[in-house]
């Protein structure tokens, strides 16, 4: 990951900016069913390789900062929600990730049980949590 940052930095011109969009360490995608006037929580998804990837990414960022290759511009945490029509759309959405998150054991069954008894007009809501960091390359 350090090499990826270093190589990206080399491709930048003067005043070039590195922008990183990362999942938030302490938050996992959260699934709920929504319908007019209702919101039924289903639960968080898991991703077993998630934690080491975030740790490695943070270490890579600290590395280039410590070596003064970049200087921080800013960082922000954000939550956003995606609304999907059915479980097939949920699967397609999750598989846009190279390493898609998944339900914990028993979670998918619970989700499908809730979906099968959904109220009229129900949708699937995915809440995602991300961090955006920006750095300017050091002169």
């Amino acid at each position: 990951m350090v090499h990826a940052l270093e190589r990206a930095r080399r491709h930048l011109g003067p005043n070039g900016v590195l922008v990183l969009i990362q999942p938030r360490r302490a938050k996992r995608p959260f699934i709920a069913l929504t319908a007019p006037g209702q919101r039924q929580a289903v639960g968080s998804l898991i991703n077993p390789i998630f934690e080491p990837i975030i740790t490695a990414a943070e270490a890579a960022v600290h590395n280039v900062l410590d070596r003064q290759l970049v200087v921080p511009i800013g960082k922000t945490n954000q939550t956003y929600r995606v609304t999907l029509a059915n479980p097939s759309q949920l699967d397609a959405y999750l598989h846009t990730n190279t390493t898609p998150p998944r339900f914990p054991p028993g979670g998918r069954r619970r989700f499908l049980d809730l979906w099968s008894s959904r109220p009229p007009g129900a949708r699937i809501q995915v809440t995602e949590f991300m961090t955006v960091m920006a750095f300017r390359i050091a002169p």
Partner: protein
Amino acid sequence: MEVGLIQRFVDLRGKRVLEIGCGDGRLTRQYAALAESVVAIEPEAELIRDARRLAAEAKIANVSFRVGSAERVRFGGGTFDIALFSWSL
């Protein structure tokens, strides 16, 4: 959403952008119209095929989608104004 957050830190308008880990180009399609040009790379060839198809359907013409990774990609130095790691570092 992501584009708005990026724009808090850097103005994408008229910039040359290198996007690393573009997947099927979901984010790329959102900001391409702002940028001068975009090179978007992704290790998985199947996703690059999808990205090219979806960009063509959206009539986006200033993006070059390429199979590759950040560690191996080779361009001239100082080619880009912004390097964007989209959920990929």
